[in-house]
């Protein structure tokens, strides 16, 4: 499972960074989204991977740490998802405004030769 998760994070990050460096605003925003998915998975992984372990206490197993997973990364991921989502939405608005003003989706606001 560790291998799948790390490969997934790596693939998402690589694609995210590549797209982030592209000259089209649509590619940039998709790149940012992929990057934030990678980051969320990474935060999740930092609490150590556990299967079938709840992050909250259940009445039967109080006191046995082996039955639980670390709740803090889950809380962090939740916050990071919300903030990341809000920021992406805001960025989308700016991209649309830029498209409206310049008539192009190039990140510099004008087409460049050779693209």
């Amino acid at each position, binding site marked *: 499972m560790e291998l799948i998760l790390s490969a997934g994070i790596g693939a998402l990050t690589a694609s995210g960074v590549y797209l982030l460096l592209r000259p089209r605003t649509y590619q940039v925003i998709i790149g940012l989204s992929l990057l934030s998915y*990678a980051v969320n998975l*990474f935060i999740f992984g930092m609490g150590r991977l556990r299967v079938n372990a709840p992050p909250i206490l259940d009445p039967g197993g109080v006191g046995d740490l082996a039955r639980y997973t670390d709740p803090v990364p889950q809380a962090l991921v939740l916050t990071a998802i919300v903030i990341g989502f809000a*920021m992406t939405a*805001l*960025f989308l608005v*700016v991209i649309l*405004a830029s498209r409206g*003003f*310049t008539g192009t989706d190039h990140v510099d*606001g004008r087409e460049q030769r050779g693209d």
Partner: protein
Amino acid sequence: MTEWLHHLSILPILAPLAVAAALVPINERERTLKGSIGIVSTFVVFIVAMILMRLAAAGEDSLPGSGVYQPGNWPAPFGIVLVVDRLSALMLCLTSGLALAAQVYSMARWHTAGHHFHSLIQLLLAGLNGAFLTGDLFNLFVFFEMMLAASYGLLLHGSGPLRVKAGLHYIAINLAASSLFLIGVSLIYGTTGTLNMADLATKLPALTPESRMLVETGAALLGIAFLVKAGMWPLGFWLPTAYAAATPPAAAIFAILTKVGIYVILRLHLLVFGAAAGASAGFGQSWLLAGGVATIAFGAIGVLASQAMGRLAGYSVLVSSGTLLAAIGLGREEMLAGALFYLVSSTLTIAAFFLLIELVERGRDAAADVLAVTMEAYGDFDEDEEEEEAGVAIPRTMAVLGLCFSLCAVLLSGLPPLSGFVAKFALLQGLFGMPAADPARALSAADWTYVTLIILSGLAAMIAMNRIGIRTFWASIEGTIPRVVIIEITPVLVLLAACLFLSFHPAPAMRYMQETVGDLLTPGLYKERVLSAPRAGDR
């Protein structure tokens, strides 16, 4: 009584948040009402910040609950804590003072350029104050994002193609930096199991070499996120464009945004990677030094190359943060008090300059100044163009503006007798004032590079300001004399007066800075205060 006083430390976050929410449903036509509510709220926060600073200056014992506030009534490291100490109180005071100036200035015309200006300023304040007060890394991220979200709104305030383009770059870079921030925070949490800065500092020396490497990687990633904000050389190309494109009141308050990056680096560097950190002591210092030196050089060249005042001010921001970063990177404890003094002085100066630029450039004929990007940026203004600004115009406009401009020039270039000089003098005195007999403290090549660059950057600022000043004030007036109302010039005058006060009464401020540095250099005290603060019920 003390219970009531205790809650003062959360007011700088709660009050702006509540006011921002309250301002949203008020009709946009009631701009004066919205602005007045905003100004009153910021003024209250300013007073609270002053009280906190007074209490902090008097020592930890006079701060209610030793300055540690537990919003969930859980003791650190398990609960969230807000920490008031000399440094955070100083930053709170500076922030609310700048916000006050920007808000008063905006009342003349700029808040009409778009919607929700006053709410955005309040949200920015809440984020900034939160970032200065918080005691743990993840809340730092949350407040950081809050501040950034508001700053995106403020940068785009007034709209127009130039602002949207600058905003696009600014937002993309900051979103990428936020991802790095999260990776850094989670790496640190994954290895040390804590997010609390004081607890982190306690746990770091005991880590195995492998874990320490991971923590250092995390800290380096965090550092990149802050250095992007501070505009360190290879990470700061977005800054002059974004700041020059922003509306003047927004740009003035943005002067403090770079200082948030500096603040966090200063705090983490001395708390977590201080002398007590064992093998990790002084981590990243050489990078800070190299980056800071490169930033000063880049900023100084940019200042010389700037044709428009907005860009000049943007590059001055870079010079200012480069000077601070390199001062931290040199690792000379004697310089830190001077660095803090420089932080306050340069922030006030740059904010005043950003406000002044628009007043000076307002009267210029658009054709006479093809290089000034400002007219194009204001092109979207047609709707409100006919609306005369409220208020009384000041007499002798050009004389007053010219005087303010020359004060800014002297302050920015660090010429005597004003506070820019006092700050640089304090920095250099910290460097040179050490016993020469001690071989460990002999001046190295890095120190000399720093000294040279500081002096050269001052020279560059002087030349650039002279050139632009002559072109603006001594050339035959082709445009009309700008109509400047009193509420626009007052904030500039007040900010400059604060610099003048610092110039002629530097002793109390310097003493405060020295005490602040004393606090920062004894991280044990901070750790003990945060980790042993009792819960409210137990007190």
